[in-house]
């Protein structure tokens, strides 16, 4: 088998009455295009085209699937349907909405709202480069995650886990709405060897249980990622990944740097969400929402002398180690 990725559809190709404008992104599961419907409305269209199972020549329409991969291809198709089915049932401003689903070119397409704006990841990078004390204001963080959590709660109610929540999958639209994107691709990826489907994870945002192959994932797994996203909004950088934390947990230390800058309550919420033990986290979005929306005077506890010394020691140590700024966390997909 060649390792050449299947070619995306060319601009101006018409599928299901939509005209392709350009490719927006490509992942293991398929390609997302910007397209316009007959009335000129912009939409995003996701094409099922698993790069490890299908090939397509430049300018061709139908993907080719070798017979020995056909059953896996269909298995992946089922996941693609599951994503469509789940998203179709959810109608919430904070969850990307599906407009249409159709079959053409011997594969299937999911038409979604096209969102204009930028990802939270882009915002974090821009904000941290300003080198202010705070990356985002606390009220901004609270209202942003209040919106996200409303959507996530609906997602969980539909028995779906996102499993790849990270700033790059949170979209902030030009009219100031926060929208979760990239559901199906986030959940399962076809492995190349082929016998089963492996989950994927993003270091820093993936809960420890995602690294184990057991059945302990649940709403609390997404909640860990939410905690990590809030952390990233405060620090400007993703937290250490779970295996690192299990070896030596420096989360408390990094969070103590934020004392006095962000309220004790917000810092505690992050610590709670990011507990290594799944059972110690908020067990439902509702529990987290309740805590996050608690009004009242914000308490700020200054660091003690001892804590300050420990921090400055740690600063010196990490200064020696850190030569380069961290790149935004990549998504790890099994190739």
């Amino acid at each position: 088998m060649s390792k050449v990725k299947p070619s995306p559809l060319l601009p101006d190709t018409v599928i299901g009455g939509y005209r392709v404008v350009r490719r927006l992104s490509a992942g293991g599961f398929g390609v997302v295009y910007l397209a316009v419907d007959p009335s000129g409305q912009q939409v995003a269209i996701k094409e099922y085209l698993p790069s490890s199972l299908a090939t397509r020549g430049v300018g061709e329409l139908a993907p080719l699937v070798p017979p020995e991969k056909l059953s896996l291809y269909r298995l992946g198709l089922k996941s693609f349907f599951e994503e469509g089915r789940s998203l179709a049932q959810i109608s919430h401003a904070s969850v990307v909405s599906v407009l249409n689903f159709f079959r053409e070119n011997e594969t299937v397409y999911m038409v979604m709202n096209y969102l204009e704006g930028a990802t939270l990841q882009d915002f974090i990078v821009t904000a941290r480069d300003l080198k202010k004390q705070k990356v985002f204001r606390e009220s901004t963080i609270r209202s942003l995650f209040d919106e996200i959590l409303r959507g996530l709660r609906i997602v969980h109610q539909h028995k779906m886990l996102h499993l790849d929540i990270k700033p790059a999958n949170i979209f902030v639209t030009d009219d100031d709405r926060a929208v979760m994107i990239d559901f199906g691709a986030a959940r399962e990826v076809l492995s190349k060897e082929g016998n089963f489907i492996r989950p994927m994870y993003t270091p820093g945002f993936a809960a420890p249980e995602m690294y184990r192959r057991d059945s302990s994932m649940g709403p609390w797994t997404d909640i860990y990622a939410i905690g990590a996203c809030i952390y990233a909004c405060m620090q400007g950088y993703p937290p250490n990944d779970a295996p690192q934390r299990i070896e030596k947990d420096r989360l408390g230390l990094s969070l103590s740097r934020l004392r006095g800058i962000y309220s004790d309550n917000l810092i505690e919420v992050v610590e709670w969400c990011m507990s290594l033990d799944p059972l110690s986290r908020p067990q439902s979005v509702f529990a987290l929402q309740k805590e996050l929306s608690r009004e009242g005077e914000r308490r700020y506890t200054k660091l003690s002398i001892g804590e300050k010394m420990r921090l400055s020691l740690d600063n010196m140590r990490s200064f020696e180690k850190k030569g380069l700024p961290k790149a935004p966390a990549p998504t790890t997909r099994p190739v």
Partner: protein
Amino acid sequence: MKFSVFQVSRKGGRAKNEDRMGYCYTRESGLFVLADGMGGHPEGEVAAQLALQTVAALYQREARPLVKDVKTFLASAVMSAHHQIMRYAGNKAMLDTPRTTIVAAVLQGTTATWVHCGDSRLYVVRDGELLTRTRDHSHAERPRPNVTDPLINRNLLLTCLGSPTTPLFEVSAPLALQQGDRIMLCSDGLWGVMDDAQIVRTLSSRQVSDAAPELVELALRRGGNHGDNVTMIALEWETPDAPGSERGVSTDSISDGVFASTIQAGMPADGEIDDLDDDAIERSIAEINEAIRRSAERKS
């Protein structure tokens, strides 16, 4: 094809029986399946029942009267069962999904092929010796260099059907059967309270219709007042009927195109068999568009 078969499922010391079992056959093929719904998650018995029904319904469709590609059938049947459970949980908007193990065997021609996920087992006994058995997908039986740690919790499974993590399962190579071979599928309520030697000895001591209930009684006694559900299907391959015993199943007795089953027929939930032929793809797309339309209506 001819076999004697005995199946039994007992509640043990538990409040309910979350194990399910059954078999079905056509003129030239037989399916034996057992599922152990998991505690610690909701509706284990539903997961086990869904798994059984899904596999049986797919078998009924494929076995005409032979299953053309047994390995592919077993793999896709297990995945379909998983998807059915997820669908069920989704439709009920459950916060946690029902989960189950599964072990299933197809006998046809002169071979047996099986699949398993979790810690429900299949044993093959030949001439009073253990020929082979499945290795559980548990921390205890995970292949590892040092196997001496006695503290491993055998109840901790690496995989099962119904978990948000896609299941892992293993399909065996086809095994050529000989007359008198005994095959047993059982839940951990049985194997968990006795060792393999004892299982093999008891199973081969008498004809299966006697040996099987004795094994189950033994397991129940050992499990005690709080013991687990005990479930098993045992069969003996191509053995002539002993005088005075119950007659075994001869698949020759049923005619072409007929299907016999101890598993309650009918598909769960929406009656859809989760195998994607063209019709199923069209149906899925239609369903999704219907859901989109309904959601849009709610919104406006």
